[in-house]
């Protein structure tokens, strides 16, 4: 009995991987809530996400001149855009739920360690 276990364990692969350098074998379920993506072209700047966020990490920042010029026709009234600070986000997914245009989504992209805070801002 012990011998069988011993031989089995000799050829077993380790249960862990060298995350984040290695992500093969990690299982990211469909519903996993991780890194956000915002499609600023369809965002209408309604601030619903910022008001609903329980961790208060979405800031509505004014658009720059350049961005104002580049806005497409449909969102002419957009003046502000959401910027999310992922360092304090609790990944609850409420922002995704309340967004009326479905432009804010949480992907199952989990691997996001970074040494710089700016890299963890989505907007």
């Amino acid at each position, binding site marked *: 009995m012990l011998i069988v276990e011993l031989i089995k364990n000799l050829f077993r692969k380790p249960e862990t991987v060298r995350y984040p350098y290695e992500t093969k074998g990690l*299982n990211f379920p469909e519903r996993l*809530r991780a890194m956000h993506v915002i499609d600023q072209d369809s965002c209408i700047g309604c601030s619903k996400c910022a008001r609903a966020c329980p961790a208060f990490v979405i800031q509505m920042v004014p658009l720059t001149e350049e961005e104002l010029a580049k806005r497409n026709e449909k969102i002419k009234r957009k003046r502000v855009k959401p910027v999310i600070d992922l360092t304090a986000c609790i990944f609850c997914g409420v922002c995704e739920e309340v967004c009326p245009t479905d432009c804010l989504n949480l992907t199952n992209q989990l691997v996001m360690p970074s040494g710089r805070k700016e890299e963890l801002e989505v907007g």
Partner: protein
Amino acid sequence: MNEEQTSFNIGPQHPALKEPETFRVIVEGERVVKAEAILGHTHRGIEKMAESRDYNKTLYLAERICGICSFAHNANFARAVEFVADVKVPKRAEFLRVLVAELERLHSHLLWLGVLAHEIGFDTFYILVWNDRETIMDLLETLTGNRVNYGMNRIGGVRFDLNDEIKKIMRDKIEEFKPRLEKIRDVVLNSKTIIARTNGVGRISKDLARKTCVTGPTARSSGIDWDLRRDEPYFIYEQLDFNVPISDRGDVYSKIILRVKELFESIKIIEQVLDLIPSGKIFQDVRGRFEGKAVSRIEAPRGENFHYVEFRKSKNPYRLKVRAPTYANVVSSVEALVGHHIADIPVIVAANDPCFSCTDRTLIIDRDKGRYQIMSARDLRKLSVETTKEVMQ
């Protein structure tokens, strides 16, 4: 304190702790003669914070009261607000709440069992149990999207639905998990190490249990036959068929056996939920300001969890009061320490209350000689492991 006695503190500070407590222990040689608990080190002001945010946001705050029984706090708060708002939660949502609650009980009891095995130096069993626990964590992640702090509830129902694919995964994994659970039960029943270190240790009699108002598995292991799921059914527990194991021995070993039995009951509940779950809506929309107050109690993995909320024509709670089960159980573990060895302290503390890491820093003060000595968790664990080796010889 007389000349032969020494006093020392266990805890409180450790950055990774959920609920650090200080235990001030007076020993005579190696034997504990008196112990007291000093609470309040992780006061985070959650109840006050809740007053400054609306009920939807407080839901996520309540979830973060405890990382292990996050669902219990989350669901309990949602249930209390639903009482005030007078909404009827759809049946399917209640089934889903029971499903997650029982998965949480599985992972919490397995975590605890691993921790206890680690405390007595039985690390093989600890890794075995924690590896099996991953199956449950994966199921929770598949259903809700997170391993902990699932964000499952919303006021008026739940956020994530069960589809056929997830249902199949659940059935398969639970089927796969059953033989492993049987293996765990066999180890617990037959392991000489576990029996030697826990049998008769940290006994809490029925009288003491009543006097110190313990709840949950701690109470049931001391012969108090009380489980909210059966005695004051909430969600849809009254439609399910399950047993409430009890024991009257009150020692650490009986707590292990009791929790393993509860694991089997949870599996039974999960299977029934998967069979019986009706189709339909998963939430009822709730909006607006409320007035009124409500109390909700549910059986968390560690015992009775209590939430009181009051609204005064507002969206923000006027008052939120929470009592977590550990708060009720900690007094009994202090009483249980008396008469035991220093090496038994981690085992007894861990038996009642998984926040064992409070044993991280121990300061031994020999007042008469003016000496003091800091005992770290490592030292304390080493002492515990050595004791295991000694009794096994």
